[in-house]
């Protein structure tokens, strides 16, 4: 697994994910929710913001079933799912699929955390 390399914008988001806090940024001026983490709001260009806990839930936008061993230590096949967040429909995340069957379009899903170590949990997805 390639461990994420947090940057100065995202470090706290990853720390919160490690505590299983599911957050996005909320603009302090116009309220727009955004992910990934960064300093300015793309809508109003405001720099005030705070973390907003949102439901760890969304719907399936698309998915792939990966067969080619692009990464030497990732056993294939594995499924990567793209999810649009229920509470923040402008925000999309990708993660691995922890479902008993292949996802279907628009399927409601919920977060399934994968513990890696004290400082890192990955956000994966399973059927709601």
């Amino acid at each position, binding site marked *: 697994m*390639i*461990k994420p390399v947090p*940057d100065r914008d995202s470090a706290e988001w990853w720390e919160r994910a490690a505590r299983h806090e599911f957050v996005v940024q909320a603009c302090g001026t116009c309220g727009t929710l955004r992910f990934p983490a960064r300093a300015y709001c793309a809508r109003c260009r405001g720099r005030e913001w705070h973390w907003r806990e949102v439901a760890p839930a969304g719907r399936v936008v698309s998915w792939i079933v*990966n*067969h080619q061993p692009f*990464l030497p230590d990732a056993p294939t096949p594995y499924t990567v799912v793209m999810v649009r967040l229920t509470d923040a*429909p402008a925000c999309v995340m990708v993660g691995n699929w922890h479902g008993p069957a292949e996802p279907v379009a628009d399927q409601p899903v919920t977060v399934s955390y994968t513990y890696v170590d004290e400082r890192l949990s990955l956000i*994966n997805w399973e059927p709601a």
Partner: protein
Amino acid sequence: MRGFCDRTAVAGVGYTAFSRNSWVSTLTLACEAVLAALDDAGLTPDDVDGIATHRVGDSAAPSVVGPALGIDAPAWYLDQFGGGSVSHAVIGQAALAVAAGVAETVVCYRAVNARSEFRMGGTGRGVPVSPEVQYQAPYGYTAPPQQYAMYARAHMLKYGTKAEHFGQLAVTQRANAVKNPRALMRAPITLDDYLASRWIAEPFRLLDCCLETDGACAVVVTTAERARDLRRPPVLISAAAWGGGDSFLSGREPADPTVTSAAELAPRLYAMAGAGPEDVDVAELYDCFTYSVIVQLEDYGFCAKGEGGPFVASGATAPGGALPVNTHGGFLSEGYVHGVNHIAEAVSQLRGDAGDRQVPGAEVALSTAQPGYILPATSALILRRG
């Protein structure tokens, strides 16, 4: 906005051989393609006062290639970061420099050992630095075919686009490559061959994917006036456009994953050329993957949104169809030089020297860059017989 429409021209194109291992440096490849393009134009390095490329840290810089060819103190140069999405922007920026009188003769190149040295997508080298990578790589989502497959499935779900549509495109482009002596893949394929090819990342099979290629390609840009006095028939740059668009991870709007940045760029491009999709005789559309062509057929206005698959299945993109596409075989079958071999093929079609691949009477060509799924930018050119 007619911009610098028809004020500049492509005066020459040049290639190295395409292979899976060039056994030489990207500097050598760049020099070979640049010299070939200059020779095609009837020029030498002494005539060059501008030099440009695009790269992602995987190739020789203009500041190295220029001195290596004795191009001393060029008046203008460009070292554009980026892969396929900026390929046509480099030519556009060269044309802009020429139109502005900053340089008179610019040579643009792309030189890659994309199979033997630096493979795209995290195999054989470090993961490219982009803020989005940290949210994707831990999940094994690192390679362009995975990303394009994700969007291709979204299109299939929304519009009913089928594997057979992707397959028909791959089969048609291979048939074009059979007629192209430069092409790496010249054995004909059938739809059954396509369907039987192994999975890479569902819904993509091996034959949905471009070739990983070692090679280089170069293009000489000069004024339209000067081009008329040179060795080959000039091909006018009627329009060049490049620009941004929302990234799917930009978090600004609920993005539609079935629409690319090309939809935003196309009106500006056509306006500068004073032309529309109905005027285009041949199109070289960025085909890093089959789906990339299908979505661009829609976003550049050749068919309605969602109709790209049936448009291909109708034979419209085959030789003799309403819009022959990727007449050289494209990145799927000729080779993959990150956009520049599309421009060179368009030039060849408009000069009328494409041999067995020639689209009869081709006067206007569209050539496009990666439509913006991976970096939220794209670029394109409309070229016209001079």
